[in-house]
């Protein structure tokens, strides 16, 4: 493993992958407990339209996806709050629309090509140095914003009404959380691809939640699962010549399964008991 990290491309992949996966995992803990776990799935489909638009207009696909995903996240918050739609309905509407627009644009631009495929399935080992710094910078910014608002986000997630009564601006934080998720999902496309990026939001967080007796432990355990999956997934990808995105997601699942079984073995009751 040590020798493998002598390769520059692997160092870049590891650095970007770890930052992005940890940002996904930390946000995932909040999203799962808010029962918003599917937002990652929805925003990744919407980001597909952004990637296709970028390819169609010949601008950086990552930048176009960022703009489209953030705009859609804001629209979902508005629809959920004002039109009385349940979160899942708003997510369903925008994710389907995103996929449809993406397919249409890719078809018109005749750009169903290797580049589009790399966004669909992820290609972290081919990440460019400029993309690494963009990804690390944005993922670090997401983590810092979460850290600065940690107490408010936790209070709102645990008991929304009491948080409001304590002066927490919950609507503003809803929007902040959705925007951060949109940014993180777009970055995660490089690691796991549009089709699998939602797994980085859901599975490490679900794994961390299996064993945590406190919120702080849940966040730390989820981040640890994310780092393990990225490091292990990159190693397996090189050793076995398999896609890194699939290896990372499968390792996330194995970590979840192990922690789930550990919890059952310890006799900790689950929600389904």
């Amino acid at each position, binding site marked *: 493993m040590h020798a493998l990290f002598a390769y520059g491309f692997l160092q870049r992949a590891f650095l970007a992958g770890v930052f992005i996966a940890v940002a996904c995992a930390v946000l995932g803990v909040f999203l799962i*407990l808010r029962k918003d776990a599917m937002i990652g799935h929805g925003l990744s489909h919407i980001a597909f339209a952004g990637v296709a638009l970028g390819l169609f207009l010949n601008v950086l696909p990552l930048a176009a996806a960022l703009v489209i995903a953030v705009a859609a996240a804001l629209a979902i918050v508005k629809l959920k709050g004002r039109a009385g739609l349940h979160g899942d309905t708003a997510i369903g509407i925008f994710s389907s629309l995103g996929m449809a627009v993406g397919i249409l644009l890719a078809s018109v631009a005749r750009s169903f090509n290797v580049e589009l495929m790399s966004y669909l399935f992820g290609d972290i080992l081919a990440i460019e140095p400029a993309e690494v710094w963009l990804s690390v910078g944005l993922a670090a910014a997401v983590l810092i914003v979460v*850290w*600065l*608002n*940690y*107490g*408010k986000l*936790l*209070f709102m997630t*645990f*008991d929304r*009404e*009491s*948080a*409001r*009564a*304590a*002066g*927490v601006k919950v609507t503003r934080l809803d929007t902040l959380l959705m925007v951060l998720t949109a940014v993180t999902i777009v970055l995660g496309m490089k690691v796991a691809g549009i089709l699998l990026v939602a797994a980085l939001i859901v599975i490490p967080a679900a794994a961390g*939640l299996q064993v*945590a*007796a*406190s*919120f*702080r*432990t*849940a966040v730390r355990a989820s981040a640890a699962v994310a780092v393990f999956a990225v490091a292990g997934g990159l190693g397996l990808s090189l050793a076995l010549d398999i896609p890194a995105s699939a290896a990372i997601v499968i390792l996330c699942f194995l970590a979840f399964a192990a922690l789930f079984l550990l919890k059952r073995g310890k006799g900790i009751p*689950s*929600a389904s008991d």
Partner: protein
Amino acid sequence: MSLVVLRRVSFAYDGTPVLVDVDLAIEEGDFLAIIGPNGSGKTTLVKIILGLLPPSEGEVEIFGKKPAEFTDWNKIGYVPQKATHIDPFFPASVEEVVGMALMSRRGQASASVREDRTKVRGALEAVGMAEAAKGPIGRLSGGQQQRVFIARALVTSPRILFLDEPTTGVDAETQAAFYDMLDRLNRSEGLTIVLVTHDIGIVNKHVNRVACLNQKLVYHGDHAAFCRSDAFRDMIGHGDHLISHEH
């Protein structure tokens, strides 16, 4: 000094009146019970005071300011009606739950982390839950959870505490200890307490002021006078609306 003032406050939900022309002043040191039948607007009234609902008409002042302009939320503690209905699998320790009220008011990075820890410890000791500080909130009984939520409401050293049906589903022994604790906070610490309840036994034993609601404010005054009032006789006459748990 009036901590809260309501002037001709009305509230309607989808055109159905819930509160009509309520005038009410809550004075410093009051232990006020807001009572009334189901659907009489008790919870709505508290939510309007706290700025969680906007009144359809009328004015509200908290510490001399409108709720939208009020920023010093440290002065107010609130335990909502369904605080015991939390997600039992939420991974929060007892001290994290109490600390939420402090952490939400500042950034995570602060020189006062140690000070906050001391405050959390003190609030948990005040409600007799210090031993459970490290354990998960979901493992506690309903009564113990309720004590933790009171600790969360107390940790910011509020001047007024709002409790909405705080002992629903809590056993009689825990209830008695809980209301004794509120008595102590009111008498020795001077904490103003506003208690929404439909338990006339608690009203008779603990509070010094009563506000009786039935969309309109039908009585507001001291407890002794309330017991001699028409409002009290009406309440007792409609015994299905109120319950009495003598402690």
